């Protein structure tokens, strides 16, 4: 006969340890990113510049401790840390967290661990928007707006089509509509590329589509952060309820969840996160697919536990990838290429490991 008491839930009790580990990983990634790049810093120099603060450029960096830094060098150091590295670190964390969270949300919602945030055509829509803006010779900020708008437009089309079609499986209808509309927008990108001036516009479009954090400014971050956090908030608050969407629609409804409404809220939030991230960073693949998968192996499938692990791991992963992209070669590697190079093998490894343990 089974005992009358439940065994202590080991996963729940391990959760704080796991989160602590992931926070440490994130801090290490931040530290590593601060000192790596075209202008190499020692940990000590980075620490001094951090302590000195952003306003005290060139005047108070470390004179009391008797550092060898001259005022000019201190100023340069402060500029590197406060105006180049930290905004870029913040951008990597935000974009990584956003893509990973959107991926985890889409995966739970579509009941499929192989789903990525591109499933409803956000990336293709954003790519088309950005390509059009580059073709029209618009400034960078307009390219970002066009990318954001294009991403939202593509997903809106998908949702509209899927809700109009009477299909016995609403999820499948949405995925199929996503495939079709994604293809349509991708064809649009190809058309724009054909029309683009091959010496200036075409390289810009190609480079934008590969993704990267090099062009992100503090203004971009200030614009995008409220959108990202505004979209994260409902996902965070609904994190227990989101589990219900991993059941069949019938089961989720029978336990009292308004499936249609919850799904639409989550699609809106995850799309907003993805479109914001893509608008400032271009198309960075694999994070939204691999990170939730890895986080699920560490924290389990339950969304309340999965979400914090996904956020921390997503931020760390993109930050590490970006530090690598900045420092591994003489030129900066496009981040989208690097995440694919790391993400695809990591994904295969996870798949193989899961196959063994199943």
């Amino acid at each position, binding site marked *: *006969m*089974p*005992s*009358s*008491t*439940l*065994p202590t*839930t*080991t*996963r729940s009790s391990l959760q704080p340890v796991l989160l602590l580990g992931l926070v440490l990983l994130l801090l290490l990634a931040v530290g590593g990113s601060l000192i790596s790049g075209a202008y190499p810093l020692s940990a000590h120099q980075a620490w001094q510049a951090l302590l000195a603060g952003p306003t005290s450029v060139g005047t108070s960096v470390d004179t009391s401790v008797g550092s060898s830094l001259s005022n000019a060098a201190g100023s340069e150091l402060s500029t590197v840390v406060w105006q180049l590295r930290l905004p870029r670190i913040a951008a990597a964390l935000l974009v990584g967290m956003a893509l990973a969270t959107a991926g985890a949300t889409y995966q*739970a919602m579509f*009941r*499929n*661990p192989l789903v990525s945030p591109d499933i409803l055509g956000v990336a293709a829509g954003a790519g088309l928007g950005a390509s059009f803006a580059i073709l029209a010779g618009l400034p960078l900020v307009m390219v970002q707006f066009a990318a954001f708008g294009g991403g939202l437009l593509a997903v809106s089309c998908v949702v509209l089509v899927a809700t109009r079609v*009477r299909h016995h499986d609403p999820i499948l209808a949405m995925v199929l509509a996503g495939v079709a509309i994604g293809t349509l927008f991708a064809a649009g990108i190809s058309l724009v590329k054909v029309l683009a001036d091959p010496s200036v516009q075409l390289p810009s479009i190609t480079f934008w589509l590969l993704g990267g954090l090099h062009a992100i400014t503090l203004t971009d971050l200030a614009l995008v952060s409220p959108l990202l956090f505004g979209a994260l908030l409902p996902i965070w*608050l*609904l*994190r*227990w*309820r989101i*589990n*219900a969407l*991993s*059941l*069949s*629609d*019938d*089961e989720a*409804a*029978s*336990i*009292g*969840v*308004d499936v249609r409404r919850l799904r639409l809220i989550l699609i809106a939030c995850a799309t907003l996160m993805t479109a914001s991230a893509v608008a400032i960073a271009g198309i960075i693949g694999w994070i939204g697919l691999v990170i939730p998968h890895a986080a*699920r192996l560490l924290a*389990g*499938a*339950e969304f*309340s536990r999965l979400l914090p692990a996904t956020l921390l791991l997503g931020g760390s992963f993109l930050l590490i990838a970006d530090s690598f992209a900045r420092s591994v070669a003489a030129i900066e590697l496009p981040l989208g290429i690097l995440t694919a190079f790391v993400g695809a093998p990591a994904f295969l490894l996870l798949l193989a490991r899961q196959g063994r343990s*199943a």
Partner: protein
Amino acid sequence: MSTTPLLAAHALAIGHPRRTVGESINLQLAGGEVLCLLGPNGSGKTTLFRTLLGLLPARDGQIEVAGQPLARWSRSQLASKLAYVPQNPALPFAFSLEEVVLMGRIAHGSPFRQPSRQDRALAAEALHSLGIAHLAERACTEVSGGERQLALIARALAQQAEVLILDEPTSSLDFGNQLRVLDCLSSLRARGLAILLSTHQPEHALRIADRILFLKQGQLIASGGRELITPAALARLYDSDEALIAAGLGMHMR
């Protein structure tokens, strides 16, 4: 009994947008009662259940839950009245059984809440009452089909609904687990729950049903007590040979 039935259907027509599956269905279910639905594959049992649960719109007729028309109930209110155990559901992620059972509590309260201590206690109690407390931490992808089925019944219990609707709850279970589920359903009846289940095994109806319905091609062709289960009636229901049915029943019931 004079009390209001917990679940009632009057002249109900069921089906999909372009196809009527069944009509003129009347049924009533009160607390402490087990109603068992027998019928061949494709007779409309699942469609009937989905309609009663408000998952599929009725094509005609009325459904009442605790005396109120079904349409008056919100999804979350309905979850505190009716719980559903579907047939062989797929779970794409490796939730632990405890997490699966806890999901029965999701709609009890604010949409933003997290599981409370009381929710966890109810889930633990439900797991225990089905004898799967020792599997609480096991992933639902790692346990047997039977154990998964028991977890879904436990989820329905954690939901604290007054009516349990179970679609062939014993179909994927081994003999021991079949008896365990039937025994559990009997004890739930004793606790005052109303139970509506479908099964392909007449001997299960004989074992626990207070009333039995025969559904064939969307029509209720017979309703009554256990005396309904005779080789002749079953032969009509399943378009089978009476002697064959008698032999089959004899073999099962000996």
